[in-house]
């Protein structure tokens, strides 16, 4: 099926944002906050980080100005969209003394404006986890089903990005309702493609002119250039087997000497989905509440079973994490658990780099195989 492709200027982008708002969506997009590009509600393109970008490296992040008025001239920030779809803390059940469930407030209808390709890939991975792997999670489903996704292709990859290695960017991946490409020429144009029926309806209502082939070609060129400017790369050839083969490697202890077991990497990761359940009772015993909170394989309680925790050493916890992301996720869900967004690298307080650690393990496995 050929979906419509239109060309917009910045004013057209404003009309698109307004239209989504008018149709009842809470429009969430990258916004400047806390010295970073995070996510917040917007009502026009003026609320985006216009003319801003960031410098990212292992364990470091700094906002800086661009020399243009680009709307999307940056990579991914500290938070991922999972904050909205798989909230960090959510009441999943509440009941009174008679065990009658109390009504919980319905979630808002979100339009995510400015989802990067790696983030779109991450949402598809969480769809698989929460909706299509044999059970369906109410919390996730109630937020995801009606969400409208506007994906934006990347032309300014960050210092820790490696989506090109993971096949998840910088060009659009499947799953979005609309895909936007920004072209920073004199005219400052945007190519917008529909990716779903809902997206087509929105474009039709917007009444924009069809995009000419030369503009579409220009948008494709921007993405191709970006793929050559990734901050990091990861050779995934044989990686899946190498990580499990190196389970007894002494390198895990060497990584553990640097790792704080602080859990930042897992919380920042857009695909990590683990959560814990806490039950509580009000002091007077009248209301029982079940709360779900993000949890991490870096915590001791996470692997606690009768008699103690299974993963007491930091080495075993780091190994669990990276092996799950890059190897056993394939066995469990049929894809990589890593989309190459680089968050775990940037937001690790001591800058532990998943690409460097995986590469070292791969090299070790290859040399052991050769000898």
């Amino acid at each position, binding site marked *: 099926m050929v979906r419509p492709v239109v060309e917009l200027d910045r004013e057209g982008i404003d009309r698109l944002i307004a239209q989504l708002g008018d149709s009842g969506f809470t429009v969430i997009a990258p916004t400047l906050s806390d010295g970073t590009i995070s996510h917040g509600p917007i009502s026009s393109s003026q609320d985006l980080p216009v003319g801003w970008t960031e410098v990212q490296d292992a364990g470091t*992040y700094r906002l800086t100005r661009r020399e243009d008025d680009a709307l999307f001239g940056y990579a991914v920030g500290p938070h991922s969209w999972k904050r909205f779809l798989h909230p960090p803390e959510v009441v999943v059940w509440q009941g009174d003394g008679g065990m009658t469930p109390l009504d919980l407030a319905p979630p808002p209808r979100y339009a995510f404006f400015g989802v990067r390709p790696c983030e779109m890939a991450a949402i598809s991975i969480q769809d698989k986890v929460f909706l299509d792997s044999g059970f369906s999670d109410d919390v996730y489903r109630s937020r995801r089903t009606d969400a409208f996704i506007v994906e934006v292709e990347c032309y300014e990859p960050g210092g820790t990005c490696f989506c090109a290695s993971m096949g998840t960017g910088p060009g659009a991946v499947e799953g979005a309702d609309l895909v936007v490409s920004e072209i920073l020429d004199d005219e400052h144009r945007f190519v917008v493609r529909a990716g779903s029926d809902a997206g087509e309806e929105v474009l039709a209502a917007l009444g924009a002119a069809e995009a000419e082939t030369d503009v579409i070609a220009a948008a494709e060129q921007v993405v191709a250039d970006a793929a050559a400017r990734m901050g990091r790369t990861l050779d995934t050839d044989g990686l899946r087997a190498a990580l499990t083969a190196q389970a007894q490697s002494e390198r895990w202890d060497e990584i553990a000497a640097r790792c*704080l077991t*602080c859990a930042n990497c897992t*919380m920042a990761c857009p695909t990590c989905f683990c959560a814990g359940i806490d039950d509580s009772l009000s*002091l007077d015993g009248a209301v029982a509440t079940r709360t779900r909170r993000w949890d*991490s394989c870096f*915590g001791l*309680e996470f692997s606690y079973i009768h008699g103690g925790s299974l993963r007491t050493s930091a080495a075993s916890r780091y190994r669990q994490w990276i092996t799950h992301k890059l190897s056993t996720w394939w066995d469990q869900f049929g894809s990589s658990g890593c989309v190459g967004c680089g968050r775990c690298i940037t937001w690790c307080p001591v800058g532990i780099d998943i690409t460097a650690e995986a590469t070292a393990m791969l090299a070790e496995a290859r040399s052991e195989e050769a000898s």
Partner: protein
Amino acid sequence: MRPLEERQPTLAVYKFASCDGCQLSLLDCEDELLAVAGAIQIANFPEASREVLPGPYDVVLVEGSITTPHDEERIHDIRRAAGVLITIGACATAGGIQALRNWKDVDDFVNIVYANPQYIETLETSTPISDHVDVDLELRGCPIDKGQLVEVIAAYLQGRKPTIPTYSVCVECKRRGTPCVMVKGTPCLGPVTQAGCNGLCPAYDRGCFGCFGPMESPNTAALADQWHALGIPANRISEAFRSFNAWSGAFREESDRWEERSPV
């Protein structure tokens, strides 16, 4: 004493060397306490009421550290008359800021501070309650978190295990949505500090001060190296670990390591 099924459990609060801040957290629980008022009898809490009922008490909260020979005796008496003994705050669980004396000669302080030092009877060290008697639960923090205190009392009354996490402050930052201040260049103790404050300081763009003491698996050495890489001199690193929880395991060892390397 009648069996628990036939009466309300009793609560007592005791104070040792401390600032009273943690007990005040309990007073600050007014609304919550009204809900428990019917379920627990406040039998001995001088800050709240002059009426003191005789012990033993079912639940005993202890604030403060042991700093005098008299304290050493008194805590044993309290333990003997306590059902469940819960220590609250950095003083009771780690020795508090006053444990800085443990690195010095206490007589020097006594001579400077008191006009008549001959009347002062004090110990060389300030130590946590758990160095002297068995403790059933430690509630960390300087001061403690009111929510955690209510949780512990509720759990006791409801006969369940309290939910008191032992992972890092970072988990709270991430859940709360605070972009990491350390990654933005501000040194932070959060990765080695136990959660409980809900990531308070980083939410105001400050590094964590370590009020809740070492987390479950604190890699203080790796964090300190990163601080050093951020340009923090050795003596400042040593001092950072040497505050409210200075005397507790990992913080104490790390502060000693960097003191030896000072002043670079």
